[in-house]
């Protein structure tokens, strides 16, 4: 019987030894589990946030934005999830930029921040209840976002984009329609606080289309013709952004393009790669701090494992002596204690990973309540690869955590161990 064939027996023996002190073993496993859950959640957040930023930015459909000068982070988040503190460009910027030889396509967008039906709608706001109202030019907007499709099925058939000249037709994003329980042909009321006016104005709109789910900020948006939006918010000659696709999107060309248009007063050119790095950079510090907490949690958990296994070794001193008397070599005892440690770490890591996977939505809610992440969609992404990595990492750490207790046990002289254990 070689080491390989005897391994299942050692595993069985180690498992039975662990069950002898079920409460202690459970607490130790829970400690490892908690640390792994923190680590997996953090890993999932790092992965998910990056993916979410990538996806959200890719789903904007353009590579460069031109917008009024201000904080680039606010500008980015405004486009990604409908932020507040909107600034506006003069409309003629659109006519100037569209003639640029490097521009492949361009779309003007006017953004106002709205509220749920029955509540006031105004062009600026900071309450979470407000929703984004986006004035777009459907033809150029769809060049940027060809994946936008009308929802079909009962109550949604016949959906279409609004007439560019209409002042009453709107298209709802998937979630906006779900939230308001509206279908194609329904009426939608919005109370508007136009710029420069003291009183709100309620307007009636007709829903002409509902979009399929995209998983982006578009799902919660109310789309209307850009001219109607400008009129609604009493900003007839203003835009919020220009979304641009360049013919050649290289860093050299982008810099060239930026230099050209930054000469305009009150304008900033924001490359979306820059937006990505801005957003990731903003969260990186927080991530580093949480990573440090996770590392400390893992170290504390491992010390707990070492302590627990060592305690178990001391309690079983006599028994270890007897096993040595019965013929166990150093390696046999080492293997047994080491396996016990590895099993605790493995069980803890599986438990923690499962907990992190199940609780990822709670983690996401907690993170969102703590910091403005600037993106919509899921930001905690727990993948099988991440779980496999965490489990493997825990087992490797368990490998090291088990070394000292296993060495301690295997180094006992049987005669001393039996005497100390009171044989």
């Amino acid at each position, binding site marked *: 019987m070689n080491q390989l064939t*005897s391994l299942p027996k050692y595993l069985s023996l180690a498992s039975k030894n662990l069950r002898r002190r079920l409460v202690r073993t459970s607490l130790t496993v829970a400690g490892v589990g908690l640390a792994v859950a923190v680590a997996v959640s953090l890993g999932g957040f790092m992965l998910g946030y990056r993916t979410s930023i990538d996806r959200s930015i890719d789903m904007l459909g353009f590579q460069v934005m031109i917008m009024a000068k201000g904080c680039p982070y606010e500008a980015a988040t405004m486009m990604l999830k409908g932020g507040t503190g909107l600034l506006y460009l003069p409309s003629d910027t659109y006519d100037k930029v569209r003639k640029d030889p490097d521009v492949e396509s361009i779309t003007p967008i006017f953004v106002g921040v709205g509220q749920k039906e029955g509540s006031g709608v105004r062009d600026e706001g900071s309450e979470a209840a407000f929703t984004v109202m986006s004035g777009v030019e459907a033809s150029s907007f769809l060049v940027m976002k060809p994946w936008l499709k009308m929802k079909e099925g009962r109550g949604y058939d016949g959906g279409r984009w609004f007439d560019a000249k209409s002042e009453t037709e709107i298209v709802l994003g998937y979630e906006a329609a779900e939230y308001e329980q509206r279908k194609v042909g329904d009426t939608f009321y919005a109370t508007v606080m136009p710029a420069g006016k003291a009183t709100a104005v309620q307007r009636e709109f007709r829903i002409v289309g509902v979009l399929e789910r995209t998983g982006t900020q578009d799902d919660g948006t109310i789309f209307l013709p850009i001219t109607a939006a400008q009129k609604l918010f009493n900003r007839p000659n203003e835009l919020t952004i220009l979304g641009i696709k360049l013919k050649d999107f290289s860093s050299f060309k982008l810099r060239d393009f930026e230099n050209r248009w930054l000469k305009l007063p009150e304008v900033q050119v924001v490359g979306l790669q820059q937006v990505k790095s801005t957003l990731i950079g903003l969260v990186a510090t927080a991530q580093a701090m949480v990573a440090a907490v996770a590392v400390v949690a893992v170290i504390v958990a491992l010390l707990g494992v070492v302590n627990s296994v060592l305690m178990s070794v001391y309690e079983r001193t006599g028994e270890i002596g007897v096993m040595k008397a019965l013929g166990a070599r150093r390696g046999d005892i080492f293997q047994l204690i080491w396996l016990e440690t590895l099993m605790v770490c493995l069980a803890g890591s599986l438990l923690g990973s499962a907990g992190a996977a199940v609780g990822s939505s709670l983690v996401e809610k907690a993170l969102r309540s703590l910091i403005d992440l600037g993106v919509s969609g899921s930001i905690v992404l727990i993948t099988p690869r991440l779980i496999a990595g965490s489990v493997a990492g825990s087992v490797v750490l368990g490998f090291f955590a088990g070394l000292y207790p296993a060495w301690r046990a295997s180094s006992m002289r049987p005669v001393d161990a039996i005497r100390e254990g009171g044989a």
Partner: protein
Amino acid sequence: MNTVIEAKGLKRHYVRGIETVKALDGVDLSIREGEMVSILGPSGSGKTTLINLLSCLDAPTGGSLSVAGKAVSGLSEDDLVEIRRGALGFVFQRFHLLPTLSVTENVELPLLFLGRPARRERTLKVLEQVGLADRAGHLPNELSGGQMQRVAIARALLIEPKILVADEPTGNLDKAAGEAIFQVFKSLAKQGLAVIVTTHNTALGYESDRVVTLEDGRIVKEERGGKT
């Protein structure tokens, strides 16, 4: 009968600070196959030290010792375990059965360390030998003290050792259970096993073939036993 243990001038001295404790100081003893030897003596007389040396759990600091044909003096723990493996069976006062293993699993435990496969029929035969075949699936906490000691004896016997060493095997048992355990030892000796027992129970000790009495680390009396 062959001699399985041969000790000449056996010493075990411990140095504690500036003091040297002579736990065993020049013991001559030989034990043959099929012989049961009891070691008697008051506490601190060196019984356990002697049995630890004879069973290769400890190494002597002086004299010569041969166990199962192999010289033991000066060997490290790693060398001693190689002599113990398969040649010596152990029974301890506190049984030291693993509480989560069944009787059968406890008995088969040494095979795991020796790298030998367990054969269930052989295990049952050994359990029959100690009168516990009907308890094979029980856990230790379902057994009496005497039964647990029998399991410990079965555990020692399964590896078919040449020498069975029992340190105070009746110390935790009542009189009847102690006598029954000694009967098992005697029967094993009759089958050719060398059995060495330390005990405080003089009456039981004299049931052995030979009785060695220790005092202050030396043999002060060596008599024939054999009372039945």
